[in-house]
Each structure stands twice: as C-alpha cells, then as structure tokens.
C-alpha cells in the first residue's frame, strides 16, 4: 500500500455497479423516488463511518429552497464528552440504553491515528480500538496487527462486539474486557458522540453522561452565494469528457476542490498562489449556492439531505447538475464500513455525488495511501 500519496478516484455512474471500470450506464427515466431507492441502497453500503464535513454546491441558485433549509436545520446536535474512561462504553447500562436502541456513534477527539491510541464506536455495536504496541501489550485483549504496519508491528486493532450474544453481563468475555479497560490499563479519551434513535423514548446522552463534562455542540453551517462562477459543462453519459463539449470527471473533481477551498480561478498574473483555471468548456453562471456543514455528522442525516437534493430537480431548474461532497475524519480508525483507515501522508477519505438534471449521477471516491479501496 505504499506508493506515494496515492489518490484512488473511482467513478460510478448511474446504477449500482460494483466494478470501478468506466462503463457508462444511462439510467432509464424513472421518477425521483424509484431512482432514489437504487442510489440510497448504494449509499447505505458506503455511507457508514464518521463524517466531518458535508458541502453541496448548486449552480444557478440564489436562494435555498425551504425544504432544504429545514433539512439542514434538522441536522441535530452532537456531544463532546471530556475525559471519558472507555470502560463506560462497555458498561451494560450504556449498551442497553443507546447501542441497542438506535445508532450510537462515538469517536475519540484530538487523537492522531498514526501516533496515539484511538477508539471508535460504530452503529452496528462494534467498539474498535486502534492502539500502539505498548498499550496493546499492557491491555491484554486479543486483537490483530494493523494492515499498514509493516514488518515491525507498531499498531494493533482490537474489535469488541458489544451486541454479541456472548457479551452479556455475567460472561467471561465481558468480565475480561471490563477488567482490562478498567483496572489493567485504564484508558481515557475525549469523545465526540451522537445518537440517532428511531423515535424510541429513553434517556439522552446528555443526561446519561451528566457526571462527566459533556457539552452539546451544533454543527457549524455556512452559506455563501458565489457570483460569476465559471462552471464546467458536463454530460452525464460522458465520463471522459469530449474536447469541445464536456469536461471529464477528474477535471470536475479538481475544479470542485478549488471552489470549495475558495481558490480564485482567475489566473491573474499578480497572483502567486494559484494558476488554476476552470477547465474548458465552461459557462459562467451568475450565481451559485454553496453550503458547508462542519461537525460530527451522522450518515442518516446525510441520506436525508441527499434525498432532498435529488428532489431539487423535481421542478424545472436552470442548473444542469449539483454536487454533494462528504468528508470523513482523517483520524478515524475506520473508513468504509469497518475497513481500516490509516494515515500515511494524508488521511483523506471522501466522496462526491454529482447529480444531474435527468437524475443520472456520478459517485467519485478518494482515499489516501493507507486505506482500503471501496469494493
């Protein structure tokens, strides 16, 4: 897996296809909801994990529709718990109250995946600990060496399934794990947590962790309207782009990165920072709407946002396409589903949906050097 900071970009046009070859598929014209089922099924496969930043760009749009505004406002809070000992996440009260009812997400805050110990709780009930050699030997729990560790293993991954039938309060497994995490090597981290429950009543995270320093935080949302933005011309059935007619997927990816990072696209002679220009052919749109949400965002909310964005083209609009980009945490121990995520020179794991007016879509994914290729 070592060959420079390799960026894998996979283009998946149209329907559910698992091979990353560039075979183009034009979707037959289905109404919005039926198309959504297909795309959401695909999304649910890849859409797990912890998301740090979501941004979407809608060309030719000055004001956000009310439906989208309410979806964004409904994103929900996440919590920052300071100095939480990890054995609290293994306690049965916690498992019964949160893990078994709904999806509970937790990720250690301010820990680097290639230097420190990290922990993550996935919604399927698995607690993943990514620990360095010393901690692994002190803990005494069984794990496996990290895939990105090389000959001299310096990092180990321990997976504990909290919803396992054999993990009930009196079992030896549970006692061993609790002993290791509570007495043998007590580990304490700051956690970012979120809980998505399907409407069931019960205590909230805030009340459960009231003894620790818990803080409710809202994701940071910024809206901006970009004026006179050159946008590339895209054809949904043409991934490679034709010289005078449309741009390729790689060009779109680069352009989108430049726009989201507010890099100026003028190529002015006085600018020393960037000589990047919008790829040809392009059209200058009068206004484009850019929204960025930063925080600890759970996939369920992103799916709701994606559904609403798909329905944006339900009414006739000037724009030909819009994009939704989702970034994962650079220091998370898992990226896609439960595949291990490492940080070699960069820890990016992000994907980008491009949704067209005719409800075709492109899905681009980028991973770093120490990452698994998505299936």
């Amino acid at each position: 897996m070592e060959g420079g900071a390799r960026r894998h970009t996979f283009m998946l046009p149209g329907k559910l296809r698992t091979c990353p070859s560039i075979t183009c598929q034009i979707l037959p014209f289905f109404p919005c909801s039926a198309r959504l089922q297909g795309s959401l099924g695909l999304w649910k496969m890849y859409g797990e994990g912890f998301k740090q930043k979501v941004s979407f760009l809608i060309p030719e749009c000055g004001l956000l529709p009310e439906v989208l505004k309410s979806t964004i406002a409904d994103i929900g809070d996440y919590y920052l718990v300071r100095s939480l000992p990890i054995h609290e996440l293994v306690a049965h009260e916690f498992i019964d109250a949160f893990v078994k009812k709904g999806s509970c997400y937790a990720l250690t805050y301010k820990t680097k995946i290639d230097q420190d110990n990290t922990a993550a709780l996935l919604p399927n009930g698995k607690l993943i600990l990514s620990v360095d050699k010393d901690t692994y030997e002190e803990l005494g729990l069984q794990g496996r060496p990290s895939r990105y560790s090389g000959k001299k293993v310096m990092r180990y991954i321990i997976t504990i399934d909290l919803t396992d039938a054999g993990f009930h309060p009196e079992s030896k497994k549970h006692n061993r794990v609790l002993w290791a995490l509570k007495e043998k090597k007590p580990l304490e981290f700051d956690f970012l947590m979120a809980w998505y429950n399907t409407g069931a009543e019960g205590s909230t995270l805030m009340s459960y962790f009231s003894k620790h320093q818990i803080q409710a935080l809202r994701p940071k949302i910024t809206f901006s309207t970009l004026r006179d933005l050159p946008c590339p011309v895209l054809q949904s059935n043409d991934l490679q782009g034709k010289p005078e007619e449309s741009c390729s997927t790689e060009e779109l990816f680069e352009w989108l990165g430049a726009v989201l990072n507010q890099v100026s696209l003028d190529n002015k002679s006085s600018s020393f920072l960037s000589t990047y220009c919008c790829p040809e052919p392009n059209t200058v749109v009068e206004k484009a709407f850019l929204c960025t949400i930063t925080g600890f965002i759970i996939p369920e909310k992103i799916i709701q946002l994606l559904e609403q964005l798909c329905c944006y083209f339900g009414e006739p609009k000037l724009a030909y396409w819009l994009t939704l980009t989702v970034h994962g945490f650079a220091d998370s121990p898992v990226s896609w589903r439960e595949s291990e995520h490492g940080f070699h020179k960069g820890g990016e794991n992000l994907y980008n949906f491009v949704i067209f007016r005719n409800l075709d879509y492109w899905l681009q994914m980028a991973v770093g050097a120490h990452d698994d290729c998505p299936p």
Partner: protein
Amino acid sequence: MAGFADLNLPQGADKKSLQSLLEAAAHLGYSAVALNHVIDFKEKKQEIIKPVPPSELFPSLPIVQGTSKRIKVLTRLTLVVSDPSHCNLLRSTSANIRLYDIIAVFPKTEKLFHIACTTLDVDLVCINVTEKLPFYFRRPPVNMAIDRGIYFELLYTPAIKDSTMRRYTISNAISLMQICKGKNIVISSAAERPLELRGPYDVANLGLLFGLSEGEAKAAVSTNCRATMLHGETRKSACGVVYTVKKPRKVEEEETAVPACKKAKTQA
C-alpha cells in the same frame, strides 16, 4: 506507529529562545524532543555537567498540536570525538553521563566510527553532513551497529541554510543508505531558531531524497526515535526495560482466565 520526535535541539544558553523552539516543535506536531548538549574535545578541557531537568527549565510545557498531551522533553549528550583517548570518558563510569537520557557520539575518523559502532555504549552515531565524508562507510561496522540497536543520525537544518551543505547532506546520506539499506536511521534537526524546524511529515518526505522508502522515512521520524529513547533507558538497567506497576490489592489468578475470544470459539 509512535509519536513524532526530534532528537536534536541544541541547548543554547538562552532560556527564552529554547522556550520558543519548544513551542514551535509542539505546534508542528512533535510529541517528544531532546535537548542536546554538545561536548567538543578539541577545545580546551570541558567538563560534563549534570543535565538540568526539563521541569526546572520550563515551568509549563506546551501542548502538542492536535492532541491533548504535553510535549515530552529529554536530555541528550553528544560527544564530538577526534581522538581515541576521548572515548575513555564513555568507558569510565562517570556519574554525570548516566543522567542523560540519550548519548550520541560524533566520530571524525574511520577508526573512531568503527569503535563507536562496535564497542562504545551509545544510542546514536551522528553522520557528518556539513562536509565531504573523510572516510567511506564499510559494511561490517554498520551491520554490527544495527545488530546492537544503535541508530545513525542525519541532520537536515544545515541543508536548509546553505546549498553546498545541501549537496553534502544528500551525498553522505545516500552513501550511508547504500550500506545500511535504510535501516536504523533517525533524521533530526539541529535547529537553533524556530524557523529552521520543519514538520514531521515534511522531514519524512526529505527522507525520500536520501534514498529511504516511504515507510522507512516515516519510521525515521517516529518509530526509530522511540527505539532510540528506549535504548537509552536500557543503558540505565542491566539488559531490558520492563515497566511494572505495583498493584495495591491482589490480582485474581491469571492461569484460569482464558482470553475471551478463544473461549468464544470453543463455545461456538
């Protein structure tokens, strides 16, 4: 992977400049640094003084960027030897030497390089990067040093300052790589000012220029530094390092507790 460390920060007299160096290192992401005290025997007789504990020098250590831990500060002694008689200091059981966490030697001749790799009780052997190497590296002493757990140190700050030294740095490093094949290398700065420090990922990229592979280059700033620090600790003990913690109450017997995962397999 271990935390990033910079094992060579020259210990100047000025406390304020040291503090700013430490803050720069913490901001760049280094979890540990070593303050280097250099003894050059060519000058008039110098005494090895006791190292000042970092807790006295710095009342509060800066927090490493991106984590919630404070930077760790170690003490290091470098002996610049140009004559075999200078090595006697290391062989003698001087009390002050033992107080340093890491001991490094900077040999100036081939014979001394051989002695340093094979017999001297040190953690690091410094490689000259500021001038053309007066001797060629040979495989036997280098391999012996690797077996003994001694690491070779390369500096990168002279390369930042001057282009001639940049050439020497790269050529000396490449000739070392041809012999040691990228093993047991530590890259550190000898930064006197915060501007001369570079981030750990940038230093790992610099390692690629020296002929290291990607994994080896990152290890040169993280894993190998950790190994050097542990090697320094073993010098204070007889043969190895085992951390023990006295438990206040008795522990239940361990022989009967089968690891949880193995038990589940037999049950299933």
